[in-house]
C-alpha cells in the first residue's frame, strides 16, 4: 500500500537524517575559546522590482565601504555574503572586500531570486553563475554558500557538495556546525543565527538598532557561560543597505567591542571555522 506524502520524512536534502543528528560531546575551539563569533555582512542586490531594489543600491555605493571601515578599525575580519549581481554591479567594492582580507562567501545571484522557487536546472544554473562571477571578480573561488533569504532549494546542498564547496550556512538549527554527506560527498553545515539579524530586528521589526546589539550581547553572555564546558558559536548579521547606513554604526561598534572584551571569544570567519572543523576531524 502506498503511503501518502504526509508520511514521507527525511527524503529531502533539507530534511535528511544527517541534519537530525545531535552532538552531545563537547568540541574545542582554538586557544580554549568558549564561543566562536562571526560578524556577517550581507551585500545584496535586487534584480527584480521589489521595493528593495532601489535601496539595495546603497549597499554597494556606501554601506559596504562604511562596514569595511568599521571592521578594519576594530581589527577584525568579517564574513561577507555577496550576491553575484552585487559583484557584477559593484566589482570595485567586492575586490576591496577581498583585498582587505575579509571572507567572501556566495549568497546567490540576486536577493529576490529564491532558490526554493526554481526548477532544479535553474537552481543549479543560478549557483554556478554566482560562483563564476565571484571567482572572476576576486580571483578566488568561494568555498562557502548561503542561499538568498536563507531559503535553499532541495537541490542546493547537492550542487554545492558536487562543486567541492566546503560549507553551507542555510540552517538556523543548532549552535555548532555539523557535517553531512550528500551524493556521497561531504559538506559542513555552519548554522545561521537568525536572532541577531538587522533585517528581522531593525528593518522589518522596526526596533531600534540597540535591540540588535542587546540581542547579540545577551546571546553571547549565555554562550560564554555554556561554553565553559560545551563551546558554541554565534553569528551577528548586518545588511549593507540596512545597518550599513549611518544609523547602525554605533550599535555595531558596541557589539564588536563587547565581543572583543570577552576573554574567551574567538572572532573568526565561517571558512576558518570550517578549516578548524576539518583539522579536528569533527563530525
Amino acid at each position, binding site marked *: 500500500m502506498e503511503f501518502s506524502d504526509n508520511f514521507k520524512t527525511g527524503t529531502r536534502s533539507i530534511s535528511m537524517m544527517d541534519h537530525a543528528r545531535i552532538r552531545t560531546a563537547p568540541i574545542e575551539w582554538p586557544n580554549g575559546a568558549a564561543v566562536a563569533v562571526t560578524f556577517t555582512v550581507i551585500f545584496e*542586490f*535586487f*534584480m*527584480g*522590482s521589489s*521595493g528593495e*531594489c*532601489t*535601496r*539595495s*543600491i*546603497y549597499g*554597494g*555605493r*556606501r554601506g559596504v*565601504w*562604511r562596514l569595511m571601515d568599521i571592521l578594519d578599525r576594530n581589527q577584525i575580519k568579517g564574513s561577507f555574503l555577496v550576491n553575484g*549581481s552585487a559583484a557584477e*554591479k*559593484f566589482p*570595485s*567594492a567586492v575586490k576591496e572586500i577581498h583585498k582587505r582580507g575579509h571572507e567572501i562567501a556566495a549568497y546567490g545571484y*540576486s536577493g*529576490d531570486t529564491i532558490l526554493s522557487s526554481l526548477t532544479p536546472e535553474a537552481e543549479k544554473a543560478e549557483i554556478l553563475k554566482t560562483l563564476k562571477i565571484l571567482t572572476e571578480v576576486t580571483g578566488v573561488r568561494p568555498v562557502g554558500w548561503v542561499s538568498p533569504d536563507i531559503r535553499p532549494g532541495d537541490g542546493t546542498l547537492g550542487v554545492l557538495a558536487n562543486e567541492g564547496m566546503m560549507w553551507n550556512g542555510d540552517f538556523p538549527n543548532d549552535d555548532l556546525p555539523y557535517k553531512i554527506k550528500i551524493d556521497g560527498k561531504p559538506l559542513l553545515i555552519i548554522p545561521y543565527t537568525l536572532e541577531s539579524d538587522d533585517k528581522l530586528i531593525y528593518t522589518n*521589526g*522596526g*526596533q*531600534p*538598532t540597540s535591540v540588535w546589539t542587546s540581542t547579540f550581547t545577551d546571546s553571547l553572555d549565555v554562550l560564554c557561560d555554556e561554553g565553559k564546558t560545551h563551546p558554541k558559536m554565534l553569528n551577528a548579521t548586518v545588511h549593507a*543597505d540596512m545597518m550599513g*547606513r*549611518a*544609523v547602525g*554604526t*554605533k*550599535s555595531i561598534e558596541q557589539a564588536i567591542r563587547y565581543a572583543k572584551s570577552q576573554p574567551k571569544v574567538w572572532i573568526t570567519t565561517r571558512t576558518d571555522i570550517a578549516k578548524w572543523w576539518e583539522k579536528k576531524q569533527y563530525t
Partner: protein
Amino acid sequence: MGMFNYPRRGFLKGLGAAGAAVMAGGRVQSALAQEASRAEGRRSGPSRAIRGADFPAEHFVIRHEPIKWPKNARIAVCWVVNFECYSDTSDSFDIPHKDYSSKAAFRRLVNLFGKHDIKADWYTNGLIATRYPDTLKELAQLGHGLVGHNFANNVSMVNATEAQEHELIKRTLDDMERASGGVRPLGWFGSGGAGTAKTFELLADEGVIWTSDYASDDVPYLVPAGSKKLVLVPYMREANDTQTYGTNRHPPSALLQRFKDQFDVLYAEGEHYPQMLFLSMHAWLTGHPSGRKELEATIEYAKSFPDVWLTTETDIAKWWIDQKYS
C-alpha cells in the same frame, strides 16, 4: 496602504446606492468600484515598477572623492514633511486621518519651523492644492520647499499606464503651482518612493530638477532622465516617524534617538567626506502634539554644532548643479 488594515468602506463618492451594494464582506468588488479605482490609476494594470536589472549605469558609479558644501559645512541637514492627502478611493479611516496633516498639524509645524528659522521640504500630495490651497500659498510665501509627492498617497503610479503616470505628475505640479501662487515644484518624491523606468524622464519634461525617490547613497548624484539629467538627492527613511512611531508605536523619543545616532556618525565622517541627513516626518504623525518636543529637539541638536548647513533639498540640488558635480 494605511496603517490599519480596515476593510474598505465608505467614501466611494458618487456611487450612491450602487456603492452601498458593492460591499461584500468588506471588499469592493463591483465593476463600478473597479472603474473608480481605474480612474485613479490604482490597481489598473500590472506593475510597471522599475526593476533592479533596468537601472542605468550611473547608479553603480561610486563617488569616492569628497564634495564640498557651502562654507565647508561637514553636513547638510534637511527636515522633510510628508504632507499627505488621500483620495476618494481610499477608505473612511484614511481620508480624515491624513487630513489632520493640513488642518491641525500644518499650523503647529509651520509655527515650530518659523520659531527656529528652518525652511523645510514639504512633500505634497497634489490633492492638497484642491482641498487646502491656502496651505501651499502660505508655504510659498514663507520660502519653504514645495515638493511634488504624487497626486494622492493612496494612488499608485506604478500600476498606472504611462499616460496615467504622466497625468498624475503633471496634474500634481500644475495644481501646486496654481495654489501656491506661481511656485512650480522643482523636486519630486513618489508615494513610498515608487516609480517606473519612465518616471525620471516624465519629471524632467515637467520642469523638475531633482528627485529623492531612491534611498541609494548618503550624498546626491546625477541620474539620466530621458535626454536630460536629474539630481538624485537620496531619500533617508532611517529617522522617519513611520518606522518608529507610525507602525511600531515607539515613543516619540525614538525619532530623536535615531536622528542623533545618524547625525553623530555622519558629522564625524563629514570631517573628511561631507555628508547629508534628513529627518523625514509625516504631518499626520509628528505634526500631532506628541511629536513636537522631539522634533524641536532635533532642530536644537543640529544647531548646537558648528559647520552644519541647515538647508532644503532644492538648495542642495541647485548647489550640486552649480558645482557641476556628477
